[in-house]
């Protein structure tokens, strides 16, 4: 299958983009010049640092940058930042910076790049708390890009078993189980999402909150998935091999799990690749509203929350970058999902139920 994906130009690009993104967030601590908790309160909304590779004499030089100094402009009645041209700070590869732990175990303070001591390098400016937006993109990505997968790990077993049981037993069980699933589907999913997120008790640790957001996301999607699985089980359960298993005396649960559900594999793979991006979107929407991942933790959604204020819209466009990343990630997943679907299910008969 990988071979076939590789043959398609778009799918190959999408796959490479995703591998790069996951690689970057995996090495976030190393690549990001600043730590997750770094904040320089005196430097809120600093514009992106400019990098120079041609010095004042017009000659090529090692990349360097200037620090910003904060000034108050009495005419505009706001703080402005100006470059302090008096001292250069060279940007060096492999510098020592904030300490982190490799895989949460080995302490290390080596970073991919940084400036000389005393210099500030804000590649994408800072936010309201003086935190480096560029660094936070990586830490935000760690959450935004994994939430979908984790939700799927919860959702798919539930959907498979639920749909399997409902379809296999049929009759009254089927009617009751399906009516329940339909009722869940009848609540506009985003409404349900925000309500579930809003009733989470306050004062949880960020890890707990993350876990519960995952669970909530999973609770939204299982019903639709279970319905499709049920439909497939209905068509499979009268096949000869199921009858054979019954004759041997296999228990219903065994038949469902061992004989029927494996038949749905290709559908499940398609549904999974197409579901991940929708969870990325849901999480970012939720965090954007302030109901998902909470500060000080970063997620691409909650980083965008600031961007919607009018002054930020006009004067601080660098705050919009996380939105671009969500777009790229979701687009790549969609393209990949479409290609996988075309490979596994060329006639596209099942596609209608996926969205």
């Amino acid at each position, binding site marked *: 299958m990988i071979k076939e994906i590789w043959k398609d130009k778009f799918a190959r690009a999408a796959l490479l983009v995703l591998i790069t993104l996951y690689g970057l967030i995996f090495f976030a601590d190393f690549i990001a010049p600043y730590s997750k908790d770094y904040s320089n309160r005196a430097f809120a909304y600093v514009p992106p640092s400019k990098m120079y590779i041609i010095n004042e004499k017009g000659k090529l030089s090692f990349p360097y940058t200037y620090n910003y100094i904060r000034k108050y402009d009495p005419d505009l009645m706001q703080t402005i930042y100006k470059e302090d041209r008096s001292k250069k700070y060279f940007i060096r590869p492999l510098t020592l910076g904030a300490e982190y732990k490799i895989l949460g175990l080995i302490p290390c303070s080596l970073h991919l790049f940084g400036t000389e001591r005393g210099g500030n390098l804000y590649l994408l400016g800072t936010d309201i708390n003086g935190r480096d937006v560029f660094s936070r993109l990586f830490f935000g990505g760690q959450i935004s890009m994994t939430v979908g997968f984790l939700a799927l790990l919860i959702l798919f077993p539930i959907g498979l078993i639920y749909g399997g049981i409902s379809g296999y037993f049929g009759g009254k069980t089927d009617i009751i189980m399906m*009516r*329940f699933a*339909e*009722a*869940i589907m*009848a*609540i*506009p*999913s*985003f*409404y*349900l999402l*925000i*309500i*579930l997120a*809003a*009733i989470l*008790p306050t004062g949880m640790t960020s890890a707990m909150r993350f876990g519960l957001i995952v669970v909530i996301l999973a609770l939204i999607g299982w019903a639709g998935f279970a319905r499709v699985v049920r439909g497939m089980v209905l068509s499979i359960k009268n096949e000869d091999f199921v009858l054979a298993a019954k004759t041997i005396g296999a228990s219903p649960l065994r038949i469902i799990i061992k004989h029927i559900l494996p038949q749905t594999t290709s559908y499940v793979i398609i549904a999974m690749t197409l579901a991940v*991006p929708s969870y990325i*979107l849901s999480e*970012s*929407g939720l965090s*954007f*509203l*302030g*109901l998902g991942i909470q500060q000080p933790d970063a997620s691409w959604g909650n980083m*965008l929350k600031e*961007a*919607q204020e*009018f002054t930020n*819209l*006009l004067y601080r*466009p660098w705050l*919009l970058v996380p*939105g671009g990343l*969500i*777009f*790229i990630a*979701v*687009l790549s997943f*969609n*393209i990949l999902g*479409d290609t996988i679907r075309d490979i596994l299910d060329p*006639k*596209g*008969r099942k*596609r*209608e139920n996926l*969205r």
Partner: protein
Amino acid sequence: MKILGYIFKRILQTIPLLIFVSIISFFIIRLSPVDPLGELRLNPSISQETLEKEQRRLGLDKPIYIQYFLWAKSFIKGDLGYTAAGEKVSVKLAERIPNTLLLTLVVIFSTWLAGIPLGLLGAVKQKTYIDRLLTLFTSMGMAIPSFFFAILLLTFAVKTGWFPVGGLTSYNFAELSFWDKFFDIVKHLFLPALVLFTISLSGLQRQMRANTLEVLDSDYIKYARAKGIPERKIIFKHALRNAINPMITLLGFEFAGLLSGAALTEYVFQYPGLGRLILEAVMKSDINLVMASLMIGAFMLVLGNLIADILLIITDPRIRA
């Protein structure tokens, strides 16, 4: 007469569904640790009398299943209680629902107008550069987060000043003539509608393309071609009609998707719709309002599916057989 019978049966089927929805939403909300009257208690302008009335209406001292029946009884009577700000929930909802319906209907109408021909075009010109371009465009439309797109358009509106931002009407709306009123609403509606239009058009175009491809692959089209019927006639007379039928089922789902998508868009554009109402209610833990808007949202969704099914019963004779 037979059609009416089917429609009647289909309407009856929605009643248990709505009851089920109400039970689920009620228990989700009531089992949460939020005090249903907490906000109301904190509001100094709410009299003790109103509080007691609410307490009695909700039966907060009784077990939870009795609370549900009390709530359902007053809901059916149309008494939805008070918001945290002390307004009647029913009044608030009546104010917002038309706005959301207006937005949703405009979007559905325009996406169908554009999506069906574009889907057909994509299928007929399959694998040409037009199709590739359309696919690229729809992939992008599906990938852009609605709120991010909304923010981008908001930036555009603020920078150019071409579009008013926030609300549905200007401050001087009451003084305008009929046509000015009309254009005022159109201007306010344009950007939120554009966001939702782009996103739902993408899904619709792809679906229509897939359906058309499937129909074009069917035996009766091959037969029609073999008979030598002109290609134009095959596409517009035979393929189009059959490809549109499954789209009608989608109409119901689209309605649901729009209700959800509208919430974020309404929030960013400060559009006075149901989605923003429920968001604000959730954030203020305004329980009466949340519960009522949840029910109305579900009701609208079920209604959307119902209308889609009825349309399908009318258009597709196979379902009646």
